[in-house]
Structures are given as structure tokens and as C-alpha cells.
């Protein structure tokens, strides 16, 4: 990791210092990793305040502090099982001990462990920007990442297992390899949501009600993780299976 590591007195200072040449520093597993692709002049260590480390239930939602580590989340009873399943996509214990829920969302990697599941579950993000505090649907956050580029994620709000059904699947050569494809489908009432992370292609939120058009528009590329044809086939067949398991009818074909 090149660049200066700076500590700040609190959220306000952290947010005020954030610009295009700085990055927030959470657990460090993404930033210190040599091929992280994150290159900043300064890294702002996220203030170590209690709310960032706690898991609480509020208004029927599970509120997870952004600095809650993967390991801590696995130990918290309130964290829904579907999110724990996604956390365990990260095989290495040492990484889970440092990786944070907020950091994984903020890095928005195309092989993200958590983002597809969070999208599928309809999670919300608690953000702190120069304009103040925001509560945003993760879908909205995904749609306009530029808008939130300087905002600090302070928490993630997820629905408990009783409110939403989630199926998720990660395809990778090995547990520790970068995922070729991470897919999650959620069902909440009659609403279905899909979260896709396709390595080197991006994170996608195809609209299931308009599947054919939105999926066609997704730019999926050939690379060392597989051909476009393979990734599309795998995505479609996996979603079909998930849709069927969640009680849907017709699948991607229709």
C-alpha cells in the first residue's frame, strides 16, 4: 500500500477530507492487497466509534455497523443466515477477521462476496456525506456510484430472514480464487430481486420483470475466468434454478 495513512478525530473530519485522491480505510484487506487497484495519496482510517462495530435491530431491520468484521457478523445472532452464507464465500479465516461489511460494499468489486446478496435482499446503506446523513437503497447506490463516491458507509441495514428469502451461489475455481460469478436472488412477498457480480464485467441488478432486455444490455466479457457465453449460460441456468426454488414460474426463458 502506497500512500499516507491518516487518523482523524471523527466522522466529520473523515468526510471533510474525502476527495478523489483519498480513500477510506476500513479493515485493509482490500486496500493493502497488492492488486487491489485502489491507489490513493491518503488513506483515511475510518473512526473507530462504537456504532461502527455493533449490530442492532431497529424498526424491524438489522443494522450492521460498517466496521463489523466478517467474523463478528458470523458470531452475531441477529445477522440473517443468508448474509452469513455470503460471508462464508470468503474462505480465509484471517481475511474474515479483518474484512469489514462496509469495506466489502464500498470496494464494489466485481467478485464481491456480499454485494449480490445485499442487492437481492434489498438492503439499505447508511451513508455520511458532506451533505449529511443519508439512508439509501443499495440499488440506488449502485445506480449512481459517482454520486456517493465521497460518502462514508457507516452501516448496512438488512432484512431479517423472516422477511426475505435469499438464494446465493458463487462460482470460482477454488474458494480462495476470485469468483467468476456471484449470483443472488431474493424474494420478498411477490417481489424478486437479482444481484450479479461478474468478474471484470461489473455488478448488475437486472430487472426480473424485464429480464430479457436488462440482461442483454449487461456487458459481459470473455476473459481468463470464462467466456461470455459461459458466464451468461451459468447466470441464466443458476437464476432459473433459484427462481424455481423460490417458487417462481417460467424462469429466464420466459
Amino acid at each position, binding site marked *: *500500500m502506497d500512500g499516507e495513512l491518516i487518523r482523524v478525530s471523527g466522522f466529520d473530519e473523515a468526510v471533510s477530507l474525502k476527495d478523489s485522491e483519498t480513500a477510506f480505510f476500513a479493515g485493509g484487506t482490500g486496500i493493502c492487497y497488492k492488486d487491489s487497484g485502489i491507489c490513493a495519496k491518503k488513506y483515511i482510517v475510518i473512526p473507530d466509534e462504537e456504532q461502527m462495530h455493533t449490530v442492532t435491530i431497529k424498526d424491524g431491520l438489522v443494522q450492521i455497523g460498517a466496521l463489523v468484521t466478517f467474523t463478528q457478523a458470523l458470531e452475531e445472532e441477529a445477522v440473517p443466515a443468508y448474509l452469513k452464507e455470503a460471508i462464508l464465500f470468503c474462505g480465509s479465516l484471517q*481475511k474474515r477477521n*479483518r474484512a469489514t461489511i462496509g469495506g466489502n460494499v464500498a470496494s464494489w468489486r466485481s467478485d464481491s462476496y456480499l454485494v449480490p446478496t445485499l442487492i437481492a435482499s434489498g438492503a439499505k446503506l447508511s451513508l455520511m456525506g458532506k451533505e449529511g446523513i443519508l439512508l439509501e437503497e443499495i440499488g440506488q447506490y449502485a445506480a449512481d456510484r459517482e454520486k456517493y463516491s465521497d460518502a462514508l458507509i457507516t452501516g448496512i441495514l438488512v432484512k431479517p430472514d423472516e422477511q426475505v428469502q435469499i438464494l446465493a451461489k458463487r462460482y470460482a475455481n477454488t474458494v480462495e*480464487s476470485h469468483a467468476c460469478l456471484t449470483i443472488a436472488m431474493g424474494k420478498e412477498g411477490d417481489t424478486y430481486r437479482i444481484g450479479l457480480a461478474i468478474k471484470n464485467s461489473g455488478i448488475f441488478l437486472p430487472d426480473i420483470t424485464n429480464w430479457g432486455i436488462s440482461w442483454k444490455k449487461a456487458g459481459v466479457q470473455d*476473459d*481468463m475466468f470464462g467466456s461470455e457465453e459461459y458466464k451468461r*449460460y451459468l447466470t441464466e441456468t443458476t437464476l432459473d434454478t433459484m427462481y424455481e426454488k423460490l417458487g417462481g414460474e417460467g424462469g429466464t426463458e420466459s
Partner: protein
Amino acid sequence: MKIRLWVNQIERTYETCASKPLRDLLFEHGFSAVRDSDDYEGFCGSDTVLMDGVPVYSDLVPAALAEDTYIVTPDGLRELGILAASGADLSRSFFGKTDISAEQKKALEQALMLNGKSGPDCLTVVQQAMIDAGLVQSAYNAPAAALMLTWLLVQHPSPTRDQIRDAMSGIFIRDAGYEHYYLAVQLAKEMIENGSSSTEAAPSFRPHLRIVGKPAGKVDGPQLVRGEKVFVEDYVSQDACCLVMLRSPHAHAYIKSIDTSEAEKVPGVVKIITAANCPDTFYMQAGQGNPEPSPHDRRLFNWKVRHVGDRVAGIVAETKEAGEKARDLIKVDYEILPAVFTVEEAMAEGAPRVHNGIVEYRAGAPADLDEYNQDAGDWRDGKVIYQFPLGADIHHNVAASNSGGIGDIEKAFAEADAVVERTYQTSQVQQTPLEPHVCFARMEGNRLTVYASTQVPFHVRRIVGWVTGLPENRIHVVKTRVGGGYGSKQDILIEDVTAYASFITGRAVYCRNTREEEFIANSTRHPMRARVKMSGKKDGTITGIFMEVRANTGPYGNHCLTVPMNSCSKTLPLFKCANMAYDLKVYYTNTPPAGAYQGYGTPKGTFGIMMVMAELAEKLGCDYKEMVLKNHVETGYRLDILKGLGEGREGNVVPVGSCGLREAVLQGCDMIHWGVKETSSDPDVRIGKGFAMIMQGSGLPGLDHAEAIAKMETDGTVILNSGCADIGTGLDTICAKVVSEIMCMPMEHITVLSGDTDGSVFDTGSYASSGTFFSGNAAVVAARGLKEEVLKEAAFQMEEEKEDLELRMPGEVYSRKTGKTLSYADLSHTACSGTGHGTMVYHGTFVTAASSVPYGAHFAQVAVNTRTGEIDVQKFYALQDAGTPINPELALCQMYGAALKSIGHTLYEGMILDKDGHCVNANMTDYGVPMIYEQPEDFKAVLIDVDDADGPFGAKSISEIACNGAAPAIGIAIHDAIGIWLQDWPMTPEKILRKLGKLSAKADT
């Protein structure tokens, strides 16, 4: 900034940059067991520490964030065990807090319990358990693994299998696999509960022997598992310069000019070595016997670069940073040439010539050589010098070729009831030793000392001698402990240039490859295309086998003949077949270099030949198992096929010696319930079974050579100076055990000093599965000679007849006639006290024409998802005849490690090059290697008990053969599951889907 932290319970304050990785800070301050295997990739786990009781990768933690924390490093475990025994409060170090429960306190004390031994053998029970389980081998990660198991037992005193797997989830082990980590936890628990362990780590062999064939630990186990300073990097002096390499961005180009003037101005730059100022000496880097069956086709730096990552300049600088800064200032003007990356491209008419210089022969030059050389190209192509003819034609990119056979293959095919002919392709895979290639060299007076992590110290000395011009008496090679080799450290890949840099600058010089350099600039497995044709009769008799091998040696010809030869010489002799033929050609290309890799050419040949056999069985309507049993060789069968399959000379035609092949097949079939179809509850999943026969060698008869000197010290203890190179496999222990057995004395009274060219006598080194057979036999010869010397001297001192004397435990001479005894201590003291005959010593040399071949069979059960193409290896059984396994617990772990490695090769490992020859997955995460989660849930290694006439106490080789079975076993199992035959590695889900017609038939990405 200054930070304060507690390391292994001791408060320390360090001046550091805030963003410096914690690992670097700790390593710089002497905690050398906090190692780095992946250049801050967060993959291998060598950098694991506990931070306030939490395991973390210290590579990924900025030092500033460790302020006021309690750190435990792997090398602190024993001291913490001693502290715990004295009642110290270690709660902060292991729980991150002081208010722990009584149960937690008890768990902490128990996990850090000591083994009851003193001095250098004092270990924690976990460390002891790891040695007992056979896990401490090359051991670069063993201390980190011990830390994780200790942490596990602190958190979970009776861990489940899942908890053990989770604790090991971030530690990469390449040599010993992961299966015995479950055993180690069991052994540690037993030691905690009962003071000793009762579970056997491995079966024992040869009841009449005292220590050979019994699990007895490893002589260097304690120092390795404790994390002592035993690797090359631990010998580097403070004043050492760094050697930084400028590498080619092009796959094929002439260097038109190279300007180092700006770079030389960088403060701290000592010397820049390029093609313009390096010696005009052509050599090769393969660590093989001299004269080598590899062409001398390179200089230290060439005027032509032949692969992305080829050496362009070496910068010797006071610091790495200065070297890297200078590297960026070197201006190189390249004339880019068209490149070839596959054998098909290399063999095409008019293909660019990878080597196009003058060809010379040290012996056996063809009559038309002058004419041939008239077609040589630019002077910058240099030369290719053959030690003897290898069937080369560099104008067509052929580095070597050979063909031959027995019987009448065409007649066999013509008369057969069925013939199957298929072409198989294998990918370029990398050894990925945890310790990358490292070398430290320094001048001592007029002598050059080279600390090397090598399998071949004497070959290193010879080649360093060629490069520097120094005679061998002025070169001292010290083989340190080797943190993983697997063939890659059979080649002299950085020792040549590091030693030369020290020699010309007079400075101590250190060179350490980055992980990326390991991929792009080291040796790899030769990618290979094997066309195999096999014929048979309806009764299952195989009547003919033909193998056509086309191998890719990359830019240089290291092992170019012998690796492909192995594809045939270690596969065809599995069969009782009168008609066999082979034709092999090896091509130069512009891929990253190829070289030796555990298994050598055999895994690729075995893949093709066993897959074809399974397909032929199906075509003939025969049961595959019955066909195997009908056609495999047995003891006494004369192997005429070997005549043409020597290492560049005529091979030894010998009958099959000891052979446990049939027993391996039969026992494995019973274990896996061969013939019973398994089903899955998932309708998309099909289950299948497969197996493959395997064989290897035990060194190279008629070529390999090993020596050892056994010497009795004045107190009756013995030092064995062995030329052997223990690369973590326990060769020193083998030597100690055979001496102990022959001399009737305890292991602890024997020290093996090995791998030091000043302190020992010649040995060709550890490759070709030669260690146990050759170096072990040299130790046997030396010990038997010493025994004779002892009996002779004792007869003199005791005034008795030698024939009446015998050796007895624990190291004494006993007279059967008079009942008198004389201890070795008294005997040796007297021998050197002015009245005796001096030190009792014997110099043993071992050479042989005999060949002890290990055999085996590997079995796989796979579940294939027909919807997604995913393959799950549910079961893998490795059954091998290793003769007498001298270290059975180490042998089992080597089988697990090698088999798992080849499961990785079979399913996902493979270097991927872009169209310009850049490797796009030159890191551990993208390349992908098996971690504990990839291990088959049901994984068994079984030693078939077969004694051998020629091996030391009946031993044969063990680990290399274990690389050979996975690909065909899995490939056959996939066919059994879903009816498709895959013909290339890696067998990815995408390929499965294409074969199933779920994706178009276009080439895979």
C-alpha cells in the same frame, strides 16, 4: 512514527512508517518466522500472526494499526509455552482481553503445554504433534500452521473437523497436504489429556528393524516448526545489496541498444549487468548431471529476449528501492520479432525461429554442421551448444527429439479388434513453492559463498563456476533449508546471476524473486500434446501402444529431452505389451520457461495412456479393472522398451523388480467399491469412479551418484557428511535412521550434515526421485563401512577376533565369545588418544545399474453437475508401493501433498497467456491452488507393503509418483459419471458444458 506494541508478551517500541505492513516491521526486527510467500496478496498465510488474539495476515495490516496491541508470532510459541508453564498471564495475547473465564484460562494453558523435553527439543504439544503427524516438511508455513492450531485449541479445546478446517482455511500448504492436520489436532489433544499420544500417525513396517520404517519424527523438525532462522533469507547480512531484475516486456525481440547511464547515477547503485558486460559464456540452468542432456543456449543476459519476463539487466544496489528506481531509468530499444507460443505455431512452416544462432556440439557433431550454420541468423541470437546430439533442429524450433520402440506396432494395430487414438493436451502449471527462489552470495577472501535454496548444491557450484570462471575449490555452496522445491529448485535460476553479481562487485548480494517472477521467469511444467494410439483384442489384451509427444520447452531448453522422454519411459513400462513405439519432439517457443516439476513428464504421459486405455476398454466391451489386471507388468517382466528411453543415451533394459501394482489396484477397487454405481439426491448431479495405474523411478541408474562420509567422533557419536540435499522431504532423517539402524545407536547420537559443498562429498542432488534410493544407499554404504572400521578397531583394542564381535544398542561393541563390552565412547576416545589408529571413518559411494520402481494406483470418485459443469472430487485414494517407507508418516503426507497438487492441475491450475505472451494470472489468487477447502472430503493415502532388493532397507521413492494419477483417475471418473471424455487439463466446468453440448463447440477461453 513511533509505535508501541507487545510482541510475544514483551513490550517493544519501534520507529516506523504508519503504512508499512506489520509483517515487514516484525521481520525487520528479527521475527523471521513471519514470512511472506505472496507479496502482500493475503493468500498463503506465511505472514499470519495473532493480533490481540485474532489471527490476521500481517501483510495486510499497516503497522500503525497494531499500536498498543498484543502480537503473537509463530516463532514465539515455545517461549510463550514456557511462560504459560511458569504461570504468566497470556490472556491479552490470545484473547485480546484480561477478563477471561476459568475455562478459557485452562484452554490457553493446555494449548501451550510443553512436550516435556528440554533444550532444543522443547516444543509445545502442537508443534510436537505436527512433527509426529509428518506435517513438518519444507516447512516454510509450518510455524504459521502451528500458530493457527494453537489458536484453535485455545478457542475450541475439542474442535470439530469443520473448526479445524476453518482454522487452516488461510494457510497454503503445498508439500504435505492438509489431511494430517486433523491428525495433528488429535495427537495434540491426546498429549494434553494423557501426557503422550497413542494414535499412530502412520503404520510401521519391518518389525525386525528398530527404527527404519517406523514413525520417529524428523531430525530437523523442531527447528523448522519453531520457526528458527534456517532459510536463505535468514542468512542475509545487513550490508547485502539487492539484485533487482529488469525484465523483458516482449515475448521475442532483439535488444538494439541498452542505455544504463541515467540508472547508474541513482545513489546506491553499485553495478548494472547487461548483455553488454556479462561473460560471453553459454550455459544452461537445468541442474542435471554433466554433460547435461539440455542445450547450452543462454548467457547470463542475452542480446535477444525470448519471453516476457526474460532477463534484460540486473541492477545491484544498496537497497531494493534504489534498484527499482534505477531499473525504471534504463532505456532499452527493442526490435520486436514475431513470436510463437504453441507447438503448433512453432512447428509451422516458416515459423519465427526462437533460437537462430550458431549450433555447436561438444561431442557427436553431425557432418553437415557447417552447412547448417550457414543459415544462422543475427549474431544477437547467440549460440546453442549441445553436449551430445539430442535430435535437435533449431531452424525448425526443435530443441530435441527421439523415437523408437519394440515389436511391430503397425501390425499390432492392423490385427487388433479395436483401436483408439486420441490427442491429449496439458497446460502450463507452476510449482508455487511457498518460499520463492532466493539466493544470497558473498565473497569471503578469494572464495565465493553462495547460500542457496536448491535441490542440487553441487550442480549450482559447477554452473556458478562456469559463469564466474572460478574453479570449484573457490566456490562454497551452502544449501539451507528449502521452503519448497518440487523440481523448480533443481534449476539454477537465480543463483547464477546472484553469485556473479557478488563476484564482480565484491559485495554481498541478495536476490529474491517476486511471486510474479516465480510465474513468468522460472520453470514450469512443459505444456504437452500427447497423441496416444492403443489397440487391443476382445479378451482385453493390449496389443499395441504408440505415443507421439509434442512438448513445449519455452524459450530455453532446460530438461527439453528428458521431460518428454519421461512421458514415455514412466508409462509404457506399465504394460506387458510386445509392440510399443514412441515419437517425441520438443519445441522452442516464446512462453515462460519450462523445466523440472515433480512428476517430470510422467503425469502428462499417464494422463494420455490411461485415458486411452479406459476408452479402449469401453470400445472392446471389457471391464476396465479386468483389463488393467490383465495387462500390467509383474515382477520379472523384461522391460525391453527402456532400451531407447535413457536420458540422452541408451537406457537400462531391466526386468521389473519389486512391484506392488496389482495389490494397489485390487485394494483400491475394494476401497472405492469399484463397479458399484453411486447416485446423488440432486437430479442434476451424476457420480462416477475412475482410477489409474502409476509408476515412477528411484533416481537415474547409471547416471546418479551419491556419497557420504560416516565419522565417529571422540565421544562415540557419529557425524554423517552427506552430499544429499534434503529439500524438506526428510532425507537427512532417512540418512540418520539408516546409520542408527546399522550402527546400533540412538538417533540423537547421529548428526547429518548435508548439502554443503565444502563439508560433504559429491551427490548429484535431489531430483528424479533419487534422494532415498541414492543418497540413502550412500549413507548405508558409509555406515556399513564405519561398522567394519569400528569392529576392526574394537578387535584391536579388546584383543579379540573381529568375527566374535557385534554392535549393540545403545552404541557398544559386544564380544559373543567373552561377553565383554566396549562403548563407542571408550573405543573412539582410545582410538584418538595416541595408542589407537585414529578416527574411524568411512567414505561411502553409491552407484548402480539397478532400478527400484515405485508403483501404485490412484482412485477418484467425482460428482459432476450436468447443469453447471461443476466437478466435486468426493473421494480420492492414493495407494502406493514405496518399498519400505523409511519415514512412513512423512511418506503419507507427501502422497497427500502431491496428489492434491495434481488434483489442482487437473481441475483448475494453469498459466494463461494473452496474445502477446503476458501471463495474466501470475499471482496465487488468480492462478488458484488447492487450499484445505479443495481437499476431497474422503482422502486416503495407503502404503502398499512391498520390500525391494535394491533400495536402502528395501525403500523406493515416494512423492513424485503421487503426481501422476489424478488427471486420468478424475478424467475416467468424469466419463463414468456423464459419459464424456475430456482430453485436456484443466478439466473446467466450461469444458464440461461444451462437451455436454450446453455451450457451443468453440474453443475455450
